[in-house]
Structure formats: C-alpha cells, structure tokens
C-alpha cells in the first residue's frame, strides 16, 4: 500500500519561475549610482580644465630623465629596504620565540623602539650620524688592524634611507613573521621532531615554508606601502622619485604638475607590485590548500573583468545585503 503512495503522480503546484516572477526594482540604487558618477565626472572636469595645470608639462615630465632616474632609485630602495627588513624581521622573530630570555628582551626592545619612533625621525637620525660618530671604525680591539671610514662619505642619502626604512620595517616584519610561525600547527614541528629533526631543521624544512604562505600577503602589503613611504626620503635627498620631483619644482615652480607626475608613477608601481603580489600568493598558496572556486587574475578586485561585467547586472537586480 505504501508503494501505491510512492507511485502516485505529483500534485501540480504553482511555483515561482522565470516566466511568472516580477523582479524587485531598486530605483534608489540607480539614483545614487548616477549621482556618484556625476560627482566624479565634475571633479575630473574641473581638474582637466584647470588653467593652473598645464597638462603638456605633465606629459613632458612623465618621461623626463631625472624623473625616470628617481623611479629607478625608488624601486631599488623599496626592494633593498624590504629585503633588509624581512631579514631583520625573521631574526627578531626567532629571537622573540627563543628560550633565551635575553634574546627575547632585546627583540622586544628593538620592536618597541622602532615602532615607537616615527620613520621620518629615524631617517634624519641616520643621515646625520656623523654628528655622533664622525668616523666609522671596524678593527680588532687593542690593535691598529682594521678599517676606518668618514661617516659623511658612507652615510649618503641612499644609505641613510635604506637603513632607516629597512630597520623600521624590520620591527613590523618581526611581528608578522612571529605570527606566521605561531599560526603553523604545533603538530607539524612535533612530527618533524618525531623523525629525528633538530630544532633548526624543523624550523627550516617544515615550519618556515608553511609560515611563508601565511606571511606573504602582509609582507606584500608592507612592500606596496614601502613604495610610497620612500617618498619621505626626500628630506635626506635620497635621489628617489620624490626627491627628484621636488628638486625640479623648486627650480621651476611647477609644483602641481610634478606632484601629478610623481603620483602617476607611484600608482603605476603600485599596480605592478599588486600584480606580482597576486602571482606570489598564487605560487605559495595553492599547493597545500584546497582551491575554492576560480582564482582571480588580480588580487585587487577592481581589475577583475568579471567584476566589471556583472556590475550593471548587480545594480539592477541584486537583493540588499541585509535580510529584508
């Protein structure tokens, strides 16, 4: 008798489908979107037609040799300072996680000091190191064997900039790396120990590679931030993009044009760095993680072609985020 019930034809139920459903309209959303576009258009128009900005000059200085030199120095400086900061960060993180209380204390002191003082102050400090130590000496104690340099010769704007930015980033990177190491399941180190790895090997072969995956996004962020922090270097004349731009506008008074030129280059560098950050994340991220859905080409969602394509569709039909 139950079989008869199963075999009975399904009752016809009128249900919502593509043919008989009236989609909810969102006229308010369209109005807000139009207002925003109008506002932005007005701003662009005011800027573009401003008599005080000569756009020809912007174009001219965009590829001016001194500006291009500055771009190169900015890139060099950002890369070198980030590498230095990362190396210091890894060392400090190890110290902070070590069993030696003096190492922990020194690491904490370093992090406290370099996060507690503005990077601008640190830059000026390094540049003026000659006031403290007119000569830098490396020698074997109690002998005359060694080297001596004039501090002012060694401490160029570039060296001061690299030291200042690198040492400063080191303090921030230390916390990132420490968090990354601590985020790796302790069972991983235990398993490594159980097959006879020494503490160093456990860290190097098993823990750090996994911590790397965790710390790449924040370190990538630090690098992108560093690209623009280098502009502070202009106070110590580090020959970076901002230094060179400011030297030009101090001579010819075209402040706005050169600031726009510098901004365009900073933005271009950021876009490229963002692209490589995405690549790096993909390289380190997919192997040992389940891939959820399709990965986007750029980590910045604005650049995703799919996103732009569905924007119009969303504006019209997407239900509100909160439950109605």
């Amino acid at each position: 008798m139950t079989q008869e019930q199963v075999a009975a034809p399904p009752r016809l139920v009128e249900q919502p489908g593509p043919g008989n459903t009236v989609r909810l309209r969102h006229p308010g959303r369209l109005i807000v979107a139009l207002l925003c576009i109008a506002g932005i258009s007005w701003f662009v128009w005011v800027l573009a037609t401003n008599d005080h900005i000569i756009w020809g000059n912007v174009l001219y200085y965009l590829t001016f040799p001194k500006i291009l030199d500055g771009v190169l120095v900015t890139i060099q400086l950002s890369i070198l300072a980030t590498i230095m900061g990362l190396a210091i960060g890894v060392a400090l993180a190890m110290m902070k996680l070590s069993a030696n209380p003096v190492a922990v204390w020194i690491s904490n002191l370093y992090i406290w000091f370099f996060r507690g003082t503005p990077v601008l102050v640190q830059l000026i400090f390094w540049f003026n190191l000659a006031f403290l130590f007119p000569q830098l000496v490396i020698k074997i104690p109690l002998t005359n064997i060694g080297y001596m340099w004039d501090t002012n010769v060694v401490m160029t704007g570039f060296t001061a900039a690299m030291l200042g930015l690198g040492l400063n980033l080191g303090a921030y990177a230390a916390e990132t790396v420490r968090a990354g190491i601590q985020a790796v399941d302790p069972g991983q180190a235990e398993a490594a120990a159980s097959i006879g790895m020494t503490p160093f090997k456990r860290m190097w072969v098993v823990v750090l590679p996994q911590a790397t995956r965790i710390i790449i996004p924040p370190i990538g962020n630090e690098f992108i931030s560093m690209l623009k922090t280098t502009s502070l270097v202009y106070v110590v004349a580090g020959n970076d993009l901002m230094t060179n731009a400011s030297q030009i506008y101090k001579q010819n008074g075209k402040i706005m044009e050169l600031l726009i030129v510098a901004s365009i280059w900073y933005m271009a560098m950021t876009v490229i760095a963002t692209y490589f950050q995405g690549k790096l994340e993909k390289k380190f991220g997919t192997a040992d993680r389940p891939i959820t859905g399709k990965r986007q080409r750029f980590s910045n969602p604005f650049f995703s072609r799919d996103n732009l394509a569905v924007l119009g569709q969303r504006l019209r039909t997407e239900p509100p985020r909160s439950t109605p």
Partner: protein
Amino acid sequence: MTSTTTSLAQTGTDRHLPLVLAEQVTKSFGNHQVLSGIDFSVETGEVACIIGPSGSGKSTFLRCLNALEKPNGGRIRIDGEDVGFNYRKGKFHEWNSAEYAKLRLNVGMVFQRFNLFANMTALENVACGPARVKGESKKLALARAEELLERVGLAGHGHKYPMKLSGGQQQRVAIARSLAMDPQVMLFDEPTSALDPELVDEVLEVMKSLAVGGMTMVLVTHEIGFAREVADSLAFIDGGVVVERGNPRELIANPQHERTQQFLSKVL
C-alpha cells in the same frame, strides 16, 4: 607474551633489559599530576596496547617515550640507553637537542591527527626523513618512499598533497613516513580516533601487517577489538598508573580490577 614489569627495575649490567623500559615515570603539568609512577616494559617484537579513559595519562606516557614530553621523575630506557640523559660515573647528564634527535631516529611515532607536513606531497613526506635527516641521496629516498607508499596501499597517490587525501590515507602516509626511518619501535597515539568510522579498518589493516612483520609497537588505542586480536599485551592505565596489565584476551574477558571492569563495560 605475558609481561612482568616491576621486577625488571633492578639494573644488573648483564641482566637482559627489555627494548623499552619505563620505571616510576611521573609527569605533571603545573599542579596537575598526569603520571604518578608508571612502570612499563616492551620486549623486542612485542605489540603492547594501552587503553584507559581520556585524561588517564596514556598519551602523555607515550609521548614521554620519545621525549616529546619530558618526565618529571623516573627513568626511561630504550635499547638499554637512558632517554634524556647520558649516565656516566653515577651522574645523569642532560641531553642536548642533537641527542634527542638521535633517539627519535630509532623511535617512530604516529599521531592522532596525522600531522603530515602540509608543504610536501605524500611522497616527499615519506622521503623527507631519509633525505633531510639521514642524509640519503634524494633519488634513493624517493624510490624507497614509493615502495613504502605501495606497502601501505597508496601506490599512485604520491604526488598528492595531504589536503587532497582522506583521513585514512593521510594516516597511512604518516605510518609510511615513520617506517621510512627504520625505527626499532613505533609509537601509535590513538591513530584511528580522528578518522571517520569507515576509514578505520584500512589503517588497522596496515598496522596489523606491521605487527605480523615483527615490528615492536606501543599503541594507545580505543580499538579493543584490534587489541584483542593483534596485541601481545594489554595495559589499562587510569589516574596516571598502570592499573592492570596482561594477556589481552584474558584481561578483556576477565578483568581483575574494579576500575578496569567499569571501563571495559563502557567501551565493549
């Protein structure tokens, strides 16, 4: 194999020592006493099972055997050598990290939560120990790893990362990883407790084949059936001491202590 534990505590030099010998091992975490004097021994080739309620200290004891935990008191010897100390001229000299690493070459361990290296494929997990610790050539290590994966029934899965394997497969890779070091004794810390029920058997099968092959094993488990069928001895640990130990079939059929009876009545 019935075992007598406490009588082996004397340390005559020419007396036969069991492969694993633990005497009066104590361990506490803060104020919480986990082990209150455990005596335990395992002969070469023996499969020794340990059961007990959760929190009884059985896992902690197992972790003491390869020094993942340092006991607060007592003495553990494996193959006649003290664990954690070098005994010279009446003094116990504490080990450095290299000496701990050397011990663990001999003592394999399989964890409840597998703990496969997430940054390596299954094959690399197995080859890692021989290549990176023992210094074997990479080619040889990988070739042996292939063999071991085949032995645990995972031929063709070597290229997969742990995340892509089921729990049972992961645990079998973990067993192969431990086997790759050619340990004298293998410790199993509840190896099937984190598995879905339908995956338990495939892991137990691998362990059974190891036991048949003569591997010395110390196994903390809740699989009473496995203990009865495969183990040479069964110990019931509760409150940080070995309450009762003996032949598995006899102990399960006819437990002597009230606490053992209570525990078995709940799990059987």
